[in-house]
């Protein structure tokens, strides 16, 4: 007794035995595989099916034999020919190798050029990026993974690359995707093959259910991965919050810095931006923002995708972001180099200003940040005109050095100002040096040096310096106010100041111009305090000695370095000094 199956070939119904059906089915699958890649395959298959139906029909004798058995099927196959027979007669030079491979089954994947870079969901550790890359380059995924770990160890760049690739690379979800990823032509035959392989894998997975050991280890694996999943989730949450806060912070930083450029002054100003012109600054700031924010955004988005299983970013958008990131990095490098280049040449402009001869020259500092109402007409208005009413704060520079030099006692005293600045070219540097506004102001016999100099016409900050040299005739008396001290070079102001009895309260120092420069007028004060200290030291020493000899009898102690001896005799102490002995 045999079970029969009812089949339908070209709308003719046949009863066929089970084993015969299996054979027929696998034969038809073979044939379909064989013809699968030609355009006319459908027609050929139809012809063959038709012919098989006809042959079956011939073998059926109503009443005596109504079921197709294995023998019939084998006969039909012999007559129709095996797939290998077809190949022999059809084989052409072009596809010979292909057929050969197929027959031996050694190279099951037919490679063709149009591979697609996609993530492989069937062979993944995290996102299938490595296996996808490996597929693309036709190597084992393990090498890509090792490479990635190496990159991770070398500064962590691997993580960023991985995340970006994860976002950029689409996942190979459908069978067609997977075949495109493997570089197979998406034809019927390959489809069938892919499907069969999958089915085979599946059946293999199911077939070993009998092995308890294997099962047990799998559950343990599940448990482990569950635990890891929980920890991973927590880490992901922490990272998500971290990335989110960073993004927020960056955004605030960006907005406030931008406001500075557009005239809304606020204290949040990134110092390096000072070195750039407004237009460049805006671009550089945007580049900087993107360069840092995009990776954080990618991390943020990636984490939300993991945690909330949201859709992945549109690949055009992610590619655009990636491109923007690269551009930003390049832009930042450009600005760094360009700005550094702008410090290459140095230019100095010297200006001499004669000053009146006078007996005593007073020098003081004028803190231009402090403005008196009474000075509105002079100082403040001057700066206001030069700065077009803009806030002084960002235009003030204090790199000012003052030197004093002697000239012949009969010569005309003068002040020399050296304005220097840096630039990409000498021309640019000298232009910038020219835009430094700094000059002493004379009020009676006092010369007031402003505390800061100004850069006019929105000149960029390029290491501008002002060196002031005051040439005074020998013998001239000079009074230096204490406030000017930080700007004075070459002479020791504090040493001179300490010569005064009340140094802390002393507001000025007196100097005379000698051939070798300024000399402090005030002579050092006698120092009585030092002797007092010495006496104190001797006293304490004696005390210690007495303590030492308290319990001793009949001994003489010489104190080192002095001519004092201490004699202890019969409960009495005698202290002798040489003087006394001499006396």
């Amino acid at each position, binding site marked *: 007794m045999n079970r029969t199956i009812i089949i339908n070939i*070209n709308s003719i119904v046949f009863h066929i035995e089970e084993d015969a059906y299996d054979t027929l089915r696998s034969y038809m699958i073979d044939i379909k595989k064989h013809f699968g890649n030609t355009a*006319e395959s459908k027609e050929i298959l139809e012809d*063959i099916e*038709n012919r098989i139906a*006809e042959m079956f*029909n011939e073998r059926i004798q109503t009443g005596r034999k109504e079921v197709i058995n294995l023998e019939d099927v084998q006969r039909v196959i012999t007559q129709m020919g095996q797939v290998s027979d*077809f190949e*022999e007669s*059809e084989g052409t030079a072009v596809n010979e190798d292909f057929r050969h491979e197929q027959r031996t089954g050694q190279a099951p994947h037919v490679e063709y050029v149009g591979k697609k870079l996609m993530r492989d969901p069937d062979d993944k550790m995290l996102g299938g990026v490595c296996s996808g890359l490996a597929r693309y380059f036709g190597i084992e995924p393990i090498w890509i993974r090792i490479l990635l770990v190496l990159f991770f160890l070398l500064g962590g760049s691997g993580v960023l690359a991985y995340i970006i690739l994860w976002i950029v690379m689409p996942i190979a979800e459908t069978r067609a995707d997977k075949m495109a990823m493997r570089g197979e032509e998406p034809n019927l035959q390959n489809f069938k093959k892919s499907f069969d392989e999958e089915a085979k894998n599946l059946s293999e997975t199911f077939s070993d259910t009998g092995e308890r050991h294997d099962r047990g280890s799998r559950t343990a694996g599940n448990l482990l991965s569950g635990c890891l999943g929980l920890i991973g989730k927590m880490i992901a949450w922490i990272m998500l919050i971290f990335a989110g806060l960073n993004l927020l912070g960056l955004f605030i930083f960006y907005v406030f810095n931008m406001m500075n450029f557009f005239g809304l002054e606020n204290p949040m100003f990134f110092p390096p931006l000072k070195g750039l012109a407004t237009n460049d600054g805006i671009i550089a700031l945007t580049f900087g923002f993107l360069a840092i924010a995009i990776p954080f955004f990618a991390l943020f988005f990636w984490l939300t995708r993991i945690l909330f299983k949201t859709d992945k970013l549109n690949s055009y958008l992610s590619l655009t972001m990636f491109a923007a990131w690269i551009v930003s990095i390049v832009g930042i490098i450009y600005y760094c180099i360009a700005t550094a280049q702008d410090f290459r040449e140095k230019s100095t402009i010297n200006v001499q200003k004669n000053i009146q001869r006078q007996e005593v020259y007073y020098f003081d500092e004028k803190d231009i940040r402090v403005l008196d109402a009474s000075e509105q007409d002079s100082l403040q208005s001057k700066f206001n005109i030069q700065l077009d009413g803009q806030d002084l704060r960002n235009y003030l520079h204090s790199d000012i050095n003052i030197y004093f030099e002697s000239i012949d006692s009969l010569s005309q005293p003068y002040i020399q100002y050296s304005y220097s600045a840096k630039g990409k070219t000498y021309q640019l540097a000298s232009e910038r040096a020219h835009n430094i506004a700094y000059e002493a102001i004379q009020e009676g016999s006092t010369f007031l040096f402003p505390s800061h100099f100004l850069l006019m016409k929105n000149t960029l900050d390029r290491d501008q310096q002002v060196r002031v040299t005051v040439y005074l005739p020998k013998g001239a008396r000079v009074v230096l106010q204490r406030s000017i001290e930080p700007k004075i070079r070459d002479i020791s102001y504090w040493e001179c100041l300490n010569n005064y009895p009340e140094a802390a309260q002393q507001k000025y120092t007196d100097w005379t111009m000698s051939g070798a420069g300024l000399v402090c007028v005030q002579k050092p004060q006698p120092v009585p305090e030092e002797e007092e200290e010495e006496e104190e030291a001797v006293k304490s020493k004696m005390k210690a000695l007495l303590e030492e000899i308290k319990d001793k009898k009949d001994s003489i102690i010489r104190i080192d370095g002095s001519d004092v001896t201490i004699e202890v005799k019969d409960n009495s102490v005698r202290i002798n000094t040489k003087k006394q002995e001499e006396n």
Partner: protein
Amino acid sequence: MIAENTQTQMRKGILEYCILSIISRGEIYASDIIAELKKAQLLVVEGTLYPLLTRLKNNGLLSYTWKESSSGPPRKYYQITTEGRTVLSRLDVTWKELVFAVETSLQGRND
């Protein structure tokens, strides 16, 4: 490998020529073509024939008509087209040339 390839190529060319000339004799059913080819020891299995017929048909050398069969499904009967006839006559010439060429080159070897 090369020998095999050459044989296949030679046989393939001849096969199409033979099929065309068999069909040129009149309307014929695929399994009858096979019978003829088997007799000529050119083709052993039927399966091989169908792709060839389909290709020749798609190139416009053959056409077919469906005919009711006493047993089983309707059958495809093939006939040659006028284009097929021109190709066949050209192949006839080529074949004669080939026979001449091969015989000429074989002559020296026969002794």
